[in-house]
C-alpha cells in the first residue's frame, strides 16, 4: 500500500524533473547611496527541458520578491468627540516591508488555490507566512486587508499580472521596481514554473539591500553613538547659524 503510494508520487513527480528553471538577476545587491531613488531589478532566465514540453497544458511563470519582515501596527481611525482619532491598534508581527508578485498570465490561472496556499505566493497568503500570527488574520481580517490596501497604494505591495514576458515558452524576463523608501535587508526572490496551476519547479535567490557610504555612516552613528550624533547635529546647526550671520554682516559692509 505504502509502496504503491510512493510509486504513484514518484510518477506524479517525474514530469517535474523534466523542466528546470535557470535564472539570473541583473544585480544581486542594491546599495542605498545618497542619490538612491529606487531601483529596477531585471529578473530573467530560461526553462531547461530534457524532452518536449507536455501538450495541452497552460504554462506560467510567477516571480515574487519579498522584503525583510518587520513588526507593524495597523491603526483604525474613528470619530470621537467630532474629530477623527486612532481608536484601535492591531500588532502585526512579521509583515514583509515589500512584496511584489509578477506573472506571465493572470494569477487566477497561473496558480491553483492549493498551490498558492502551499507556496504562499499571492500577497494575502504570503502575509500569513509562518512568522506572522495566524490568529491576527483570523481575529482581525479587516486589519490585514487594510494593511494590504494601504501598502498597495504606497507601492510597497505590488501585484503585476501579465508582466512576465515569456518567449517560445522558454525564455522569460520581468522587471521588479524597488521603491525609493527601501528598508535594508535580504529581499528573497522566488521564481515558479507552473502548469495548469500546479508548481512544476521553483528557484530561489536573494537580493541584498544595504545602505552604503555617507548613509551608512550617519545611520550607524545615530543609532550607536546617539549623544555624539546629537551634539554633532547641534554643532552643524550652530556653525550654519554663525556662518549665515557672518556672511550677512560681510555682505552689508
Amino acid at each position: 500500500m505504502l509502496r504503491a503510494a510512493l510509486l504513484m508520487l514518484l510518477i506524479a513527480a517525474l514530469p517535474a524533473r523534466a523542466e528546470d528553471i535557470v535564472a539570473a538577476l541583473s544585480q544581486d545587491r542594491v546599495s542605498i547611496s545618497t542619490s538612491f531613488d529606487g531601483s529596477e531589478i531585471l529578473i530573467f532566465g530560461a526553462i531547461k527541458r530534457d524532452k518536449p514540453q507536455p501538450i495541452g497544458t497552460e504554462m506560467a511563470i510567477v516571480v515574487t520578491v519579498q522584503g525583510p519582515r518587520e513588526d507593524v501596527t495597523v491603526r483604525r481611525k474613528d470619530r470621537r468627540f467630532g474629530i477623527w482619532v486612532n481608536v484601535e491598534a492591531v500588532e502585526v508581527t512579521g509583515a514583509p516591508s515589500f512584496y511584489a508578485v509578477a506573472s506571465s498570465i493572470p494569477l487566477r490561472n497561473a496558480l491553483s488555490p492549493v498551490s498558492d496556499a502551499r507556496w504562499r505566493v499571492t500577497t494575502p497568503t504570503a502575509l500569513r507566512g509562518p512568522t506572522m500570527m495566524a490568529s491576527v488574520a483570523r481575529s482581525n481580517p479587516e486589519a490585514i486587508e487594510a494593511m494590504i490596501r494601504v501598502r498597495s497604494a504606497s507601492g510597497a505591495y505590488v501585484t503585476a499580472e501579465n508582466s512576465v514576458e515569456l518567449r517560445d515558452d522558454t525564455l522569460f524576463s520581468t522587471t521588479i521596481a524597488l521603491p525609493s523608501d527601501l528598508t535594508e535587508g535580504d529581499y528573497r526572490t522566488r521564481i515558479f514554473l507552473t502548469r495548469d496551476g500546479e508548481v512544476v519547479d521553483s528557484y530561489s535567490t536573494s537580493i541584498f539591500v544595504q545602505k552604503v557610504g555617507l548613509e551608512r555612516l550617519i545611520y550607524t552613528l545615530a543609532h550607536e553613538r546617539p549623544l555624539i550624533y546629537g551634539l554633532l547635529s547641534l554643532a552643524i546647526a550652530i556653525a550654519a547659524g554663525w556662518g549665515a550671520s557672518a556672511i550677512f554682516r560681510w555682505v552689508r559692509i
Partner: protein
Amino acid sequence: MQIYLPIAEVSVNAFLLLGLGGMVGVLSGMFGVGGGFLMTPLLFMIGIPPAVAVATEANQIVASSFSGVLAHLRRRTVDLRMGMVLLVGGLVGAALGVQVFNILRDLGQVDLLVKLCYVLFLGVVGGLMFIESLNAIRRARAAGPVQRTERRQRGWVHALPFKMKFRTSGLYISVIPPLMVGFFVGILAAIMGVGGGFIMVPAMIYLLGMPTKVVVGTSLFQIIFVTGFATLLHATTNYTVDMVLAVLLLIGGVVGAQVGTRIGVRMKAEQLRILLALMVLLVCGKLAADLLIEPAELYSVGTGGAH
C-alpha cells in the same frame, strides 16, 4: 535631484527641501518668527515621518535662532538674566515634553496631539493677531490722534514672591512667571517641533511686561538652548534627528531669512502682521479640516509600533 534621507528612510527631491527651507526662511525673516510652525506641517505633507519631522525641525531652529541672536547680541537687545530664568523652566518643560511625546507615540496618538496643539495655538494666535492688525489698520485709516496705551496696572504677576532684578528689561518681578512661561514653551518645543516664539513673544510683552525691543532677542536666546536640548533628547531616545534633512533645510532657511529681512523692511508693520495672521489661520484651517473631515482611508500602518 533625489536624495535619500538616512534616518527618515525616504527619498525626496533636494531642491524641494531647499525651496521649502528658503520659503519658510523668507517668511521668518519678514515676520521675525522661527517658522517651525509652518515647516513641521509642510514636512508631514511631503511624507517625512512625523517623529523625524519634529526632531529635525528642532535642530534646524537652533541654527536660525543662533543666527538671529548674534545680531541681537551686537545690538545689546538680549536680557541674558531673564533668558537664563526662562531657560531653566524651558529645559524642564522640554524634558517633560519628550516623555509625553514618547508615551503618546506608543499609544498611536502623537499625530493627534501634535495636530490638536497646532490647531489650538495657531487658531488663537492667528485670530488675535488678525483682529489686532485689522484694528491697527483701521486706526491708521481714521488718522485720528494716536491713543497711547497706558502702562498696564501692576497685577497678580507683581504680587508673587522670589523677586529678582532684570536690569536690561528694567524689571523687578518674581521669577515664577518667567519660569512658568519657559516651562510651557519647553513642552511645546518638544511636542510640536517649534521654537515657541509665537507664544513666548506675546507672553513676555503682555504677561511679564518686558520692553518690546528686548523681547525678540531674549526669546531667541532661550529658544536656542531649549530646542538644542530637545534635539539631543530626540536624538538619544528616539534616534529621529535626520542630519541630511536638517542641513538641506538649513541652507535654504538661512539664505531665505536674509532675503525675507530685506522684503520685511519695505513693508508696513500692520500689513506684515495681517499677512502673517492669514498664513497662520490658513495652516490652522488645513490641519483642522484633516481632523474634522472623514479620511478616505480609515486605517494607517506604522512600523516598529511599541518599544
